[in-house]
């Protein structure tokens, strides 16, 4: 139906010229105000079913008015014996803007919202009469809701994301431990790693201290960075006061974990006043 896919003013021009060949050009219509279209009965051999008064706009090279007869597109005939299905993920509360958007996209038409009455429709079959004021269309549009997928733009409530930015996790002058020792395999210390209670806050005494110290010692041997569970996390090298979280990999809560080589990870995240930024990852296989 590419014939009807033009913007509505161009479609109107085509329809006027269809019944009045060569009468008007686009610039004529652009310099014209329209009256209200009126129904007329076509004479023998005619197809023009509409009368429209055209008035010259002020400050143009045109004066006066002209009455034209032309054919409006009859949607009852265009969609004869069929119901237009509106693909929609959520039933009800269907507004004319949505109907117009869907019908135009699906059938390549150029309806505008004002062609339909301003109403809200539910999830059954409706026969909606095209507004009498529509310049290019008339008749009845028969449509029905059909369940469909949800559109991506209905899910994302924003389109600008600050998601890949060092600033979000890196503070100038503080080491980014997220990049240190990520590949170290702590499996030989898995008994120690797994005995640390999930959610334990690192402290210099009590259960867990010896185990975490063993892991930190290994980290230090490989990377050269000394970590101390007995010193506050606000002092360089200190880790006391930070929380240890354990995740089975893969985990949406630990997307930085290496799930291809390891099945468990301990994550120790920095705090704003820590000497480092990012997260220390302790990978092992259980």
């Amino acid at each position: 139906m590419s014939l009807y896919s033009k913007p509505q003013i161009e479609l109107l021009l085509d329809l006027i010229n269809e019944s009045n060949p060569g009468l008007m050009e686009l610039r004529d219509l652009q310099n014209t105000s329209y009256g209200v279209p009126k129904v007329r009965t076509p004479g023998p051999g005619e197809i023009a079913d509409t009368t429209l008064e055209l008035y010259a706009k002020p400050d143009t090279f045109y004066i006066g008015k002209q009455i034209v007869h032309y054919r409006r597109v009859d949607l009852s005939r265009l969609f004869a014996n069929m119901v237009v299905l509106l693909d929609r993920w959520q039933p009800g509360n269907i507004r004319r803007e949505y109907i117009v958007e869907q019908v135009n996209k699906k059938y390549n038409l150029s309806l505008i919202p004002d062609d339909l009455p301003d109403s809200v429709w539910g999830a059954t079959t409706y026969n909606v009469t095209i507004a009498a004021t529509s310049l290019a269309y008339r008749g009845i549009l028969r449509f029905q809701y059909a369940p469909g997928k949800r559109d991506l733009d209905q899910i994302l409530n924003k389109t600008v994301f600050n998601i890949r930015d060092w600033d979000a996790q890196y503070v100038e002058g503080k080491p980014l431990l997220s990049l240190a020792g990520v590949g170290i395999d702590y499996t030989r210390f898995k008994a120690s790693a797994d005995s640390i209670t999930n959610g334990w806050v690192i402290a210099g005494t009590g259960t867990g201290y010896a185990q975490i110290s063993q892991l930190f010692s290994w980290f230090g041997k490989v990377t050269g960075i000394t970590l101390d569970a007995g010193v506050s996390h606000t002092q360089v090298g200190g880790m006391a006061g930070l929380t240890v979280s354990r995740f089975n990999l893969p985990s949406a809560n630990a997307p930085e974990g290496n799930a291809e080589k390891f099945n468990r990870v301990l994550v120790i995240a920095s705090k704003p006043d820590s000497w480092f930024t990012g997260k220390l990852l302790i990978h092992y296989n259980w």
Partner: protein
Amino acid sequence: MALIQGSKVDVISGINRDVQVLLDPNGVLLGIPHPVEEDPSGATVQARLTCVPEYQYRGSQVITYQRLGFAELVTLFPALPNISPRETLYELLEGLRTATGVGLSEDDVEDAPVEAQGDGTYHVLLKAKPLSQGWYGEGTLVFQDLPPLSLVITDVTLEWN
């Protein structure tokens, strides 16, 4: 960030985290990124996110996000990464990913030779491809070989029983 999972997954994960949704990276395609004029550095890009036909959602959306700079990355390592050296960057990518958690693909970087410096360190140029979804710019990565075996095996006496 989920750098280890590659640029696309990291972008999708970031979106999920930011707007509290659960988009499946396998359900959407991330199109070619186009730098925006307002950011001459090339960091900020626009790309189209499109649902695959089989996915539970449909349609597409143009999103704006930042790529990460290699110039910054190479300065952020708190210690020289330990990576088993290879002849070229492409051969080194898996090791880099395992050792540092930075997942790069051949779509992200130009290949480059790995150069031994003679002091136990190695240099390799990280130069982003223009159409990389997650990276821009360039920087020289300095790394060292894996730790010696003597670090792991401290007891050298074998007892055959």
